[in-house]
């Protein structure tokens, strides 16, 4: 089986993969990094989103071999070095942007990519950008509110 090397959250790692192994499996099974989730088998749900060389990617849609030599960022690398939540993560907690937490890693990674591209998105732009991330729990309200807040904008509707 081939071995690939990647920089995952800034640390060099190598892992054995099959030709057919997708990046999400390499992370979860190969490296034991189970923060990245698998919610579907048709690349629809977005629970598996990570960043590869700075771009948001559904990690179930690329082969691990394609990520050989890449910089990969996952949910496990998002908090500050001291373990405290980063601005986006903190906004998700403050605005109840998660319930079961299963979509959350993908949501955070997608939202981070959005804010990198567009630091002050409108609500409509947020909803549009998240089209590829399904959340079954929140109705997206808390997620949209959190991303608005993380980008320094007041939220549409406060929780009562």
């Amino acid at each position, binding site marked *: 089986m081939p071995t690939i090397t990647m920089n995952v959250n800034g640390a060099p790692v190598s892992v054995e993969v*099959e030709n*057919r192994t997708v990046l999400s499996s390499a992370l*979860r*099974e190969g490296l034991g*990094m*189970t*923060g*990245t*989730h*698998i*919610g*579907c*088998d*048709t690349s*629809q*749900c977005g629970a598996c989103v990570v960043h590869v060389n700075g771009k948001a990617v559904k990690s179930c849609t690329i082969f691990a071999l394609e990520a050989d030599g890449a910089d990969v960022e*996952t*949910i*496990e690398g*998002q*908090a500050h070095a001291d*373990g405290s*939540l980063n601005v986006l*993560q903190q906004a*998700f*907690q*403050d605005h*109840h942007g*998660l*319930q*079961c*937490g*299963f*979509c*959350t*890693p993908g949501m*955070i990674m997608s939202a981070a990519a959005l804010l990198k591209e567009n630091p002050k998105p409108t*609500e*409509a732009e*947020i*909803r*549009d950008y*998240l*089209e590829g*991330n*399904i*959340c*079954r*729990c*929140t*109705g*997206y*309200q*808390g*997620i*949209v509110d959190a991303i608005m807040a993380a980008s320094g904008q007041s939220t*549409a*509707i406060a*929780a*009562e």
Partner: protein
Amino acid sequence: MAADGGMGHATKRREDVRFLTGRGKYTDDYTPAKTSYCAFARSTVANGKINSIDTTAAAEMPGVVAVFKGEDFAEVGGNPAGWAIVSRDGTPMQEPKRPVLAHGKVRHVGDAYAAVIAETLEQAMDAVEAIDADIDELDAVIDMAGALANDNTLVHDEIGTNMCFDWGWIEDNRAATEEAIKNAPHVTTLKLVNNRLVPNALEPRCSIGEYDPGTGDYRLTTTSQNPHLTRLLISAFVLGIAENKLTVHSPDMGGGFGSKIYHYGEEALVLAAAKKLNRPVKWTSTRTEAFLSDAHGRDHVTKIELACEKDGTFIAFRTETMANVGAYLSNFSTVTPTFLHGTLMAGNYTVPNVYVNVKTVFTNTAPVDAYRGAGRPEATFSLERVIDKAARELGINPVEIRRKNFVKPDQFPYASAAGLEYDSGNYDALMDGLEMRADLAGFEARCTTSAKNGKLRGLGINSYIEACGIAPSNLVGVLGSRIGLYDAATVRVNATGNISVMVGAHSHGQGHETAFPQVVADMLGIDPMSVEIVHGDTSKIPFGMGTYGSRSLAVCGSAVFRATEKIIKKATLIAAHMVEAKPEDVNFTDGEFAVKGTNKKVSFGDVALKAYIPHDFPIEAIEPGLEETAFYDPANFTYPAGAYACEVEVDPDTGKVEICSMVAMDDFGNVVNPLIVTGQVQGGLAQGIGQALLEHGVYDENGQLLSGSLMDYAMPRADDLPNLVVDHSNATACTHNPIGVKGCGEAGAIGSPPTVVNAVIDALQRGGHDVEHIDMPVSPGRVWAAMNG
């Protein structure tokens, strides 16, 4: 009172931190040493006779360690239905056996007939492809009316019919209701379909079986909303493993919405296989398997009649429903279309006559069972759609016709014509709040603006009531339940003063780890962060019934409350001993035990320590330790209620419906954590809007699931939904549980579908289209056809 974060405080959820940092531990995140992987062979036909299943080639594939077939489980028990329903003529319901693996026949696409265990998942999946199954495809039973009319094509040959039961509620009211309808000045009739939904919790089901030959202990790690119930079903009915030799552990769970209440055959299989192979066996559902094998929801075909006076006073509701149960009876499938549906058919109203007839039908489709709301969305949809139609026919405003018939605040407790006793509520106050919050007075002006933009605007109104806090055991016992529906909690005050609370409820997104400590901390006057919830593991928690039916806080929270009361009582004894006073002279407030009329006091923490270092205890009067358990059985259901408003714009050229606003005004009784409650309602609203506009589990006449993937089944995405306005300030406390809570998990999914459809019909009517009803999902195609039909 807790210093901060007690009852009523919008405390941020503590569990969020691990979920936000990728440290949540869901079932699939566990992989014990030496794990082997399981993949299932599933039927590609809806109805088929199994001639033979040849696994020889599969067994010889690389990495394969075992192959199982239906006959390997022929001798074990079936997975039972939890409620025995009796038909109108007194005959018991039909209960065909639900096997671990299909045997003799396959009965729906996705019905598992064999399982392969291999060293890797890929090897297991490859070997499944090598199984040679000789299955004769038979005609499929799909359409419910056809299934009842035709006894020649059967889902279960051995029972000779496709009908599970023919239930009447309340049968004694049948004649009176018929008479009332015959003599009524006005009768409105509506035929409607409550569309089949696929729950689609984002985390697929997953089960890991383990066996320890040294001790004979089994362990099942699985996605379950109720680990004790799953253990009981496996032990008492399916595999016969002694309960005390089986641990069921459900770790973090990525949503459930009902679909993870039930025990499924895959759980039994991985346990049996783990023992046989003496190594862990893991199965993780793919999304494709989830579509085909998770229990679906809804799927009713209904005719409802509303008889009323010309002034809109309700005289009678009569409902005839066919409810799909799919190919096998899932655990709650028989109670969902009956007692969770028929008993709600009086709604929020003082109607004197209610009769409901439900025929449940076996079909060659995935089992259908409780999905968020479970029976109550079906009831609310039928009622609130026919009321809207009646209002239109009689020329009465939809708000007014509802107000005219509301149970009034001074009528509580109110015995409904459908057999329930509503303990508290104020439906007029909810409607008042809605009128303000949704600015109903401004609707006409918004209509004008929409018209200028070439859009048809409509307003939908709805009132709902639900029966939650499931459920009083004595009542459900009379109604056919085979289980009790109490819950349980153990509060353990540790010697150093921090507290572990073991609960039967099991959070799968509801935030129990945050909310339950708020209750305990409030009662004890301590920091909520010193209270920790333990849940999901049968080896650690008392026997409780889990999380569904908006029951966790109302039932399990009440058990926590009762156990904490016992803690206070015992701690008072210890404190009295410590300060040498009589227990009746000791008061407990703000975390301190104080002797009346003196300045003698002792803190809760000192009492906790003393409880475990009882050097000077009067041992005949006070036991050491500070740990109490309470089982709480509710005296009644709880009755959350609400009034919802939705405004839509319909594009007359395309039929596309856009939701402009959705306002939910709910009464959940007392609220422990408003942040969590708001989120629960928003999530429910999204699922209800999904049902109304997008989602549909569609089988073709051959039993193929056409909407069997996330590409075909339209899940609500962020850009499908509006801002969701939620208000729960118009509350009346539940009168019969100690926290005064009613439950909030399902309300949004119950109240929103008729609100949305009422709004769409209103928009079309205002636009000059004489459209009385459109079945859900109200897709652009259906709307366009209705406008142009």
